[in-house]
């Protein structure tokens, strides 16, 4: 692996473009953002004011709480729906049909993210498919307000992340050596106990990776809450975008973005031990 190259310059020449790109277009903007978060809006004085606004203003604080509530709810629901589904795809569906079944299950991935949220708006609207079915069949008297509520945001998120989690859990299940199941059966474990004591623990990495991705992607997502959640309840990304768009208050937006990143980092540290690849 440690070849002596014809010129000592070659390895650096190979690596520098990517490294520079990351420095200039990722690290530098991030530093600029961090610096900006400590500056006053409009002026140039250094201040903690932006961060203080977050902790003082109840509606800002509320946005973070909302984000956490929604994201954790979405993560939990998505895992609960996706695991049995992935299990059915990996264990019950005959092997030659599994690829097809999986492709079908993630097919809606291929609609644009914006379009997918829009589609849910159609489905959940006052006179959309769901409401018309409910009122038409007599289950409810008047159409329910589903769109522009937190429930719609959750549904929109869950729809996306069930597909993602199905993928990660399915991959984990398929990659388990069949010997483990045989060994457990050989030692006296029936199907239920084999699942509880062997399969479930061994698929925990797949669950944790998927759950972590779900958490990170959901908490930073602007589109779904904006289209489906309406403006009654704001989540962090919406709050941040408001500062950029309407008020042009970049320092505040930067501070809020950094706070969001801190939350994500905490989540990462929590999940870190499952995210390390262990060699079995």
């Amino acid at each position, binding site marked *: 692996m440690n070849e002596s190259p014809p010129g000592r310059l070659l390895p650096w020449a190979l690596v520098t473009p990517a490294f520079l790109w990351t420095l200039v277009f990722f690290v530098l903007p991030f530093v600029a953002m961090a610096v900006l978060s400590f500056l006053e809006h409009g002026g140039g004085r250094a201040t903690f004011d932006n961060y203080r606004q977050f902790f003082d203003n109840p509606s800002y604080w509320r946005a973070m709480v909302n984000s956490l509530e929604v994201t954790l709810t979405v993560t939990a629901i998505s895992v609960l729906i996706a695991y049995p589904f992935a299990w059915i795809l990996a264990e019950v569906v005959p092997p030659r049909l599994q690829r097809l079944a999986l492709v079908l299950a993630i097919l809606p991935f291929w*609609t644009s993210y914006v379009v997918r949220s829009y589609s849910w708006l159609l489905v959940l609207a006052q006179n959309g498919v769901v409401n018309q079915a409910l009122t038409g069949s007599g289950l409810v008297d008047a159409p329910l307000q589903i769109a522009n509520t937190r429930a719609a945001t959750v549904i929109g998120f869950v729809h996306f992340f069930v597909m993602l989690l199905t993928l990660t859990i399915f991959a984990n299940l398929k990659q388990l050596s069949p010997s483990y199941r045989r060994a457990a059966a050989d030692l006296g474990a029936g199907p239920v106990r084999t699942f509880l004591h062997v399969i479930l623990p061994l698929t925990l990495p797949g669950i944790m990776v998927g759950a972590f991705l779900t958490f990170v992607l959901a908490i930073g997502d602007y589109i779904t809450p904006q289209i489906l959640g309406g403006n009654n309840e704001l989540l962090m990304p919406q709050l941040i975008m408001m500062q950029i768009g309407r008020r042009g208050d970049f320092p505040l937006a930067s501070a809020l973005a950094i706070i969001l990143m801190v939350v994500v980092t905490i989540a990462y540290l929590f999940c870190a031990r499952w995210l390390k690849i262990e060699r079995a």
Partner: protein
Amino acid sequence: MRIAGKILVSTYALAVYGFIFLPVIVLVLFSLQATSFPIPPFTGPSLRWYEAVLADARLTSALFNSVLVALLSSALAVALGFLAAWGFARYHLPRSGLMRGLITLPLTVSYLIIGMGLLILFNAAGIPKSLIVAGIGHVVINLPLCFAIIYSQMGDHQVNIERAARDLGAPEWKVLFLVSVPVLWPAIFASFFLSMTFSWDEFVISFLLTRFDTTLPVEIWNLLRSGLNPRTNAIGSLVFGVSIVLALLLELAFLRRSRR
């Protein structure tokens, strides 16, 4: 008892499939709506909204922009990622672990924040919003992915193939183009395809960094301002259809290769 289990399993699977496909079915169905509202009852089928979409210059140019940005940014991301992976995998560089970590770091950061940072940077530098600037953002989000995928495929077994080529007299650049690239082709292709997918569908960065000429997701977003409109259904279904066809072509091409 077994039959009850089978019924339970089938019901659950069908319910989840139903949930997954519901919005897509509604989208496509009401893209064929004859009247102006994409809600029940279905008054179709009619292609008027597809015609409207294809006649809409803004949408078609946005589509073209999306493809252009996706192609160019993915190509650049793959190129940079490949070179870096090559450099790190084949040569010994000081603090290699740290640098590799840095290059893959953007994977963990929300697109909103990456977009924001770039917006602040370009504002400060006086560079106006444009498709190029959005493209730069797309390279930022795709470079770590390309690097990670290609690097993971450059294992030690690869080394011997390259050593054999050198041993037989090939200069470095020939080793690269005649041996490494062909052998790494699946990884290169996969990372290109994934980058295309992410760039094509990307909203936030494009939204923040473009103004007049914009990408398709942003244009669709603008359409949403006019409320529920079958035109949005039409363009959404078009995008969906094209993506599926591309994915199918990919499958066939890939399957044909592996069958050889």
